[in-house]
Structure formats: C-alpha cells, structure tokens
C-alpha cells in the first residue's frame, strides 16, 4: 500500500508537465493571462490548434518527416540486417574486428561529425534534400541495429542454415527466407524504435535542412517556438501536435517497443 501511494504521487508529478501543456493549449489569450494556471479553460479553444497548424507549417513538416521515416527506417533496417547476417552467419576472417568497429559508432556523439556532414551534403548538393538526411541517418542508425541483430542471429541454431545450404540454398535465399522471418520480433521492435528516433532527430536535421520548406517536425517545433515567443496557447498546441505521431506509435506497439529497446542491452 505504501509502495502504491508513493508510486501514485510520483506518477502524478510526472504527468503534471504534460497536463499543464494540454490545459494551456486549450486556453485563449485572455484565459492564460487572466485566470489561474490550475483552472480549466472557460471554453476549450481549439483555435490554438488551427493557428498552430496554419502558421507553423506543421502539415508540411510532418509530411517531410513521414517521407524521411518511411524511406529511412525500412531501408536502414535492411542494410543493418544484411550486415548482421554477414557478421553472424557467414563469419569471415576479421568479422570480429568489423563488428567492434561498427559497434564503436553507437557511442560516438553525432555532434562530432556535424560540420563535416554539412560539407559533404553541400558538396553533393543534398542540403535541404530528404536524401541528405536519410543517408547519414542510415549510417548513424547502423551500429545499434547491427549490434542487436547480430546477437539475435547468433542465437539461431547453425544446423538450420547447414541443412538449407545442403539443400542448395544460396546465402541470399538463406537470408531472406530463413533468417529474416525468424528475426521478425527483433525487426519489429527495431522498426518502432528507429521510427521514433528518426522522427525526433534534431542535430543533423538542423545542419542539413536550412530552408523552411524542407524542415522536419523537430525543426518546425523549434522554429515556431522562437518565432511566436508569446503566443502561449498556439506554442503549446504545436508542441502537443508534434508529439502525437510518436505517442500513437508508442501506445500501439509498446509491447515490442520496450522488449526491443533493451533486448540486447541487458543480458542476465
């Protein structure tokens, strides 16, 4: 009982910030300036949401984010899975070294590479281009995914591919028809994790996307915030709308999400 009360109070504390953002997003200017913080809006004012949508270019940036995510996430996973397959199932001479070098990338702060990344995209004319995001996202997404999938692939019994190879299956067949389907739970988890990470990414996008038309959602959020500093209602509405897709994805797939996030991280 004591535990429950403690957790309940802590949970209340944790919900509080989000709760106030929701309430504020529904208040008009007069309500915000004139009434107590804790009072509910006199009339729910959905105008803030409309205003945020119209002036913030939220739909356009959501479109950009969706485009980047929908290409990057499946493509990145395929690239990672095939690399993990090569490292875990084919196992050539220096596979351990290659794995270690790739795993090291998971630890590198992306800021270390920002300035050169900008120069690469400038030189290849990929600034303000979705591809200019997708390519580095694939590179930086690899280490973690390869690492997790490598662990997963290693657990699959070797007899399985031996018998497949005996039956004359090529490596490609083995990968696509046996290993990949077996890895479906891990792939599903990584898909969701990567979708969220891609949707939320800010640093690389800040450098590569200079024009407002090409902004992804986090840039639009930051842009709206700095442009309309005193429009509290719309700012809060904008923030809320920006997190809705991620919230939906999380709530729908939380089972996979949590299992996948840490499948490889913690071994008993």
């Amino acid at each position, binding site marked *: 009982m004591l535990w429950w009360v403690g957790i309940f109070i802590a949970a209340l504390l944790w919900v509080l910030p989000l709760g106030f953002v929701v309430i504020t997003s529904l208040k008009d200017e007069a309500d915000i300036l004139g009434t107590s913080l804790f009072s509910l809006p006199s009339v729910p004012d959905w105008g803030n949401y409309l205003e945020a949508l119209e002036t913030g270019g939220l739909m356009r940036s959501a479109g950009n984010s969706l485009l980047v995510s929908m290409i990057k996430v499946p493509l990145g996973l395929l690239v990672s899975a095939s690399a993990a397959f090569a490292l875990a199932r084919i196992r050539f001479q220096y596979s351990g070294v290659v794995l270690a070098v790739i795993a090291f990338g998971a630890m590198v702060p992306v800021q270390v590479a920002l*300035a050169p990344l900008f120069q690469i995209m400038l030189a290849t004319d990929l600034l303000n281009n979705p591809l200019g995001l997708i390519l580095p996202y694939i590179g930086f997404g690899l280490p973690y995914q390869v690492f997790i999938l490598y662990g997963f692939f290693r657990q699959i019994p070797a007899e399985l591919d031996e018998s497949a190879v005996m039956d004359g299956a090529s490596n490609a067949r083995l990968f696509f028809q046996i290993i990949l389907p077996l890895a479906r739970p891990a792939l599903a988890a990584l898909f969701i994790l990567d979708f969220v990470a891609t949707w939320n990414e800010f640093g690389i996008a800040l450098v590569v996307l200079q024009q407002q038309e090409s902004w992804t959602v986090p840039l639009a959020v930051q842009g709206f915030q700095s442009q309309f500093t005193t429009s509290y209602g719309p700012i809060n509405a904008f923030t809320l709308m920006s997190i809705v897709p991620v919230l939906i994805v999380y709530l729908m797939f939380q089972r996979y999400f949590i299992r996948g996030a840490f499948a490889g991280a913690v071994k008993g």
Partner: protein
Amino acid sequence: MSSVPAMHTVQTRPRRRAPRLRAALPFLAPALLAYVAFVVFPMAESIRLSFFEWSGFVGAEQTFVGLANYVRLFTQDAVFWTAFGNSVIWVALSLVIPMPISLTLAVALDRRLPGRALFRTVFYVPGVLAAIAVANMWRWIYNPRYGVSEGLAQALGLERLQGIQWLGNADIALFAVFVAFVWQAVGTNMVLFLAGLQAVPPELSEAAELDGAGAWQRFWNVTLPSLRPTMVVVVVLTFIGSIKVFDLIVGMTGGGPAQQTQVLALWSYQQSFTNHQYGVGNAVAVVLLVLTAAVVVPYMFWTARRER
C-alpha cells in the same frame, strides 16, 4: 589494430576462409559504405579540420595551423572551459540523480501493484518524446509570469520561489534545464532496471528471506549485486546520453544566459556554424570524441572479454 596479426596466426585454414569474405561482402557492403561515408569519414574529417583554420565557406582557404586551435581553445576561450565544466557537471549529475530514481521506480514497479502497466507508461512516455518538444514544454513550465513554476509557487504561498527567472538566471539555468532532462531520462533507465530485475533469480531472495534477512538487507545483498551488469550498461548509456546533450539546451536556453548553460556539443556546433570558426569548432568536437572514447573503449573491451 595490434591484435590483428595475432588473429592471423591463429587462422589455420586461410585458403578456405578467403571465399567466405567474398560471400559476406555483398551483404556487408551497403552497411560499410554508409558507415564509412557518413560516420567514419566525417569523424576523421573533424580531426583533420581541427588542425586547420577555416571559415567553412566554399572557396575559402584552409590553412594548416597545427595545434593552434587547441592552444586557443585551452588558453583563450573562456566559453570552452564553461562548456567543459558544464558537461562534466551534467554527466556527474546524470549519474547521481536520475539513476537512483529509476532504480527505485523499477523496484516498486517490479511488484504486483494495481495499475502497474499504466504507471510504467507514465514514467516511460517522456523518454519517447523529441527532446526539442520536451524543451518547449519546460520553457512553458519555467515561464516567469504565467508558467507552472510560478503558478505552483503562488498557490503554495512560497514567496521566495515567486518571480524567479529559472532559465534567465545564470546561477540556476543549467540546473533548471537538468530537471527537464531528469523528467525525460528516468523512464528509459527504469525499463532497463526492470529488465535487469527479471533476470534476478527469485530463489536467491527467497533463500535470503528464509535466513531471516529483512527487505532492505535482501535488496542490498541480493538484488543489487545481481543488477551489476545492468548497472554497468545504465552507467555507460547515461554517460553517452549526457555527454552529448544538445537538443534540450538549444530548445531551452540556447547556451545562455551569458553562455552559462553552454556545453561541449553545443559549443562545437556554434563555433562552426554561428561563428564560422570551423577549426576551433572541430577541435571542440575532437575533445568530445576523446572524452567519449576514454569511457567507452574500456567498456567495449570489458564486454568483449565477458562475451567469451
């Protein structure tokens, strides 16, 4: 790389192995290509550029200046030391504050409490939000006139806490931003600890109970030691996450007021892109890289040895 020749001598059948690399290459190539082009090359380029003076503009000359950027950074750039100090403070606080909270929550939510799933979600959800959105939420909370902090201070009659410029006061801004970080980071670590707790064999705790150990003793002598591998992972992830804090600071203070919330990751960005000092900006990046490697490389060796 010194271990490579040793591995080669162990290799007894090189002639059979050679075709296997050829078999692996088609599967490996796309990943290696992306990884080298967008992670390894930029990193190497950062190191190279840190020895040059350059504005970053196309056509502008890159002049080799040796260690001059580093000398300048360490001796003349006061902001660098502020950023360095803040990054150290940030890492230290991250290891001390959110972790015990996460562990406590995990232990509590490992029990069969009513509403357990909902509680877990409540603590975990901030972790999936974009840091930039979290920054926006907390800017509103800290708004000195209409924000939550002000509202609470007034409602509770705490006059000393009224009218505080949480993000505008150089002495407290960093810690105010850190509170938002705690709010976001606790849930992720909690889930890691929950996963770790699942791996603690219940028989151990039961045996200790039969021996008359109290709840606290059981936690201290059975649960905590069993959580050691998890603890190492959490410490390393916390370190990696906190040394590169960027979005939250950009979204809440931009490094201000008067550079007092500056951190290494942001200072590197601003030197390169705002001040057009690519050499210095990349030198900051290299410092960041060295700090990360100093912690992460030993950890990687440690896990590699454990795997065997």
